[in-house]
């Protein structure tokens, strides 16, 4: 080292050593910048995911209140007909009212009774009805039943809405808190896994709203998108890359495809509205239209990914097959396309993941409607996960905020799963050779 510096020394100075030091310093500085950039990126990601997770995880549990409910025959079946169809129309709210009345005998004023009833979810009577319809033997008995609490109570129990503010700034009033505390004191309040969130459709009542309708809607939409975009996209890419002559027309097509990839997604929504709904009168709010619109949006992504995957296949492979007398179609089907498959699948799944997270074009074709039923097929009205997030985010009730975050978590899980699948498929197909 010193010898080398000295040998350079005869030029006049120890310039060389100084320059080397500067070069090393520049290298260290550059590495530091790189590490800083990664740290900043990762911390933002952690912050984002962390805040969603912290806000959302509470939605996976729900507060329940235990009541001793007497399934009074005079309420369920006042005329004694024994006809289950009449049972279904009975006033199960009365059962809850009687049960609460028995637990808090001092509450008489209609105003107070309403406040007391507001502890329990307004949907709890449907749960009681379902219990009776499932097991008519319950009629006439008294059972201890865990009923879902109202969303406001749920928020209070979870500590999301505060107790220590003036009464008129709270949705839950002092007398309700007193009753709730009494129930807590006797162990009649618990937090349990909120399965309903994963099995129900949307609802106006936060504690009854679930994400299953949106998941099913997303599934049908993605199936339509995949069924259209994958074959059309791959065929287009194969033709352009392997068969099309290079002339002005194919250049024009290529430029337009690249431009389409950069078109804002809402424009595709407008197109869907104008063409699929207004011209062809396809059903509004339906996954089939959403899927067609998203397929248009996903096509350029798939075409570009497939083309670059095909272009990356070494020409020697094509030549080998051609030289042995394979027809151009055989070259593509037997050699080029299989070799390009990892890239094709990765591009497709990434395009699909983008489509799964897309909201704007679906707003245009009416998938933003409030739909409480689980869609039974691609032509039933439906909504999708990101639109469900959007809808809940716009709801004023505090309880929908945690639903919003929880639905975002579910969406993220699906996206991560899809990206994981892309990585897996790429590895799997690459292993073949």
């Amino acid at each position: 080292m010193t010898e080398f510096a000295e040998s350079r020394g005869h030029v006049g100075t120890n310039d060389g050593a100084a320059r080397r030091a500067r070069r090393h310093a520049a290298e260290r500085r550059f590495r530091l910048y790189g590490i800083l950039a990664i740290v900043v990126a990762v911390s933002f990601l952690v912050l984002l995911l962390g805040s969603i997770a912290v806000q959302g995880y509470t939605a996976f549990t729900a507060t329940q209140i235990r009541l001793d409910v007497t399934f009074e025959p005079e309420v369920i079946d006042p005329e004694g007909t024994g006809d289950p169809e009449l049972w279904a129309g009975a006033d199960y709210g009365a059962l809850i009212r009687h049960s609460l009345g028995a637990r808090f005998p001092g509450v008489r004023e209609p105003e107070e009774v309403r406040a007391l009833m507001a502890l329990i979810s307004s949907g709890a009577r449907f749960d009681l009805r379902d219990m009776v319809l499932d097991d008519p033997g319950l009629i006439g008995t008294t059972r201890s039943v865990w009923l879902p609490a109202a969303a406001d109570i749920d928020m209070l129990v979870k500590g999301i809405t505060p107790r220590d503010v003036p009464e008129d700034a709270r949705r839950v009033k002092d007398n309700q808190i007193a009753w709730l505390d009494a129930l807590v004191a006797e162990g009649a309040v618990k937090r349990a896994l909120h399965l309903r969130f994963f099995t129900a459709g949307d609802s106006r009542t936060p504690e009854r709203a679930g994400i299953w309708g949106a998941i099913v809607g997303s599934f049908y939409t993605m199936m339509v998108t995949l069924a259209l975009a994958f074959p059309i996209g791959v065929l287009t890419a194969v033709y352009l890359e392997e068969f099309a002559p290079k002339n002005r027309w194919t250049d024009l097509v290529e430029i337009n495809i690249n431009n389409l990839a950069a078109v804002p997604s809402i424009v595709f929504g407008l197109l869907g509205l104008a063409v699929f709904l207004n011209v062809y009168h396809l059903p509004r709010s339906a996954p089939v239209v959403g899927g067609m619109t998203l397929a248009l949006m996903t096509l350029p992504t798939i075409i570009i990914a497939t083309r670059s995957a095909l272009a990356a296949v070494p020409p020697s492979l094509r030549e080998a097959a051609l030289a042995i007398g394979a027809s151009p179609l055989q070259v593509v089907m037997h050699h080029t396309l299989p070799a390009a498959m990892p890239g094709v699948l990765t591009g497709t799944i990434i395009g699909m993941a983008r489509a799964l997270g897309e909201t704007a074009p679906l707003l245009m074709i009416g998938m933003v409607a409030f739909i409480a039923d689980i869609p039974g097929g691609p032509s039933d009205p439906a909504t999708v996960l990101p639109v469900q997030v959007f809808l809940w985010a716009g709801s004023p009730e505090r309880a929908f905020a945690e639903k919003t975050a929880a639905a975002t978590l579910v969406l993220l899980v699906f996206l991560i799963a899809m990206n994981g699948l892309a990585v897996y498929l790429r590895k799997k197909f690459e292993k073949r050779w």
Partner: protein
Amino acid sequence: MEAQTALIGHNRPADATPVKMATRDLDVSYGAIQALAGVELDIRENEVTALIGPSGCGKTTFLRCLNRMNDTIEGCVVSGLVTLDGHDIYDRSLDVVQLRARIGMVFQKPNPFPKSIYDNAAYGPRIHGLAANRDELDEIVVTSLEKAGLWKEVRDRMGEPGTSLSGGQQQRLCIARAIAVSPEVILMDEPCSALDPIATARIEELIDELRENYTIVIVTHNMQQAARVSQRTAFFHLGQVVEMGDTVELFTNPQDERTQGYITGRFG
């Protein structure tokens, strides 16, 4: 003459050997660049014809005209006559897929398919429907691998990917793949340039064995190789055939001074 033959190490067949392929007034251009001009060459049956010359002289272009691989290159224009058994191979009615089954090709870099060794050899017979059943296909595969001198080395690993073989083995696999469709002519584009001397020697031996059944055209940069394996040699320079003749003649007594300059190492 006898002494020279012994020196080169090959027996020359009689001059009466029939012509397998021939070109007349062959011009090839890539866009504005003229790659070949007026090439006239005869390739004789069951002989090895070597094409030598400096880089960029058009040897490979010429070779790729013989099985119409130049068709796949954008902007490549071929004019003139190329015949196989007296028939024009650029005739419109000719099926190029069928032609390439008759004229096989081996490339500079070994390019086995990313499939098993078996599938590499079986691919050609499969797409051309040469085997009626699995047994016939097996037989074709084994015969071609035997002819390519690879069978003993791979008989226990037919399911392994062709790309797992060594460079020389891969090149012999490519030869086996080419001969599996029973071609009449085999074109070789510098088949040994990516191989070590031992693998090269193995391929050269193989070329000599294959000559019995096939007509072989080989492009090479290595003049010793041309002298060792070929019966006839063509010297290409700047897109033209400068000299064509008996290999021994050409190397010992070149007629053109450019040929002499090239083979004695003064240029190229």
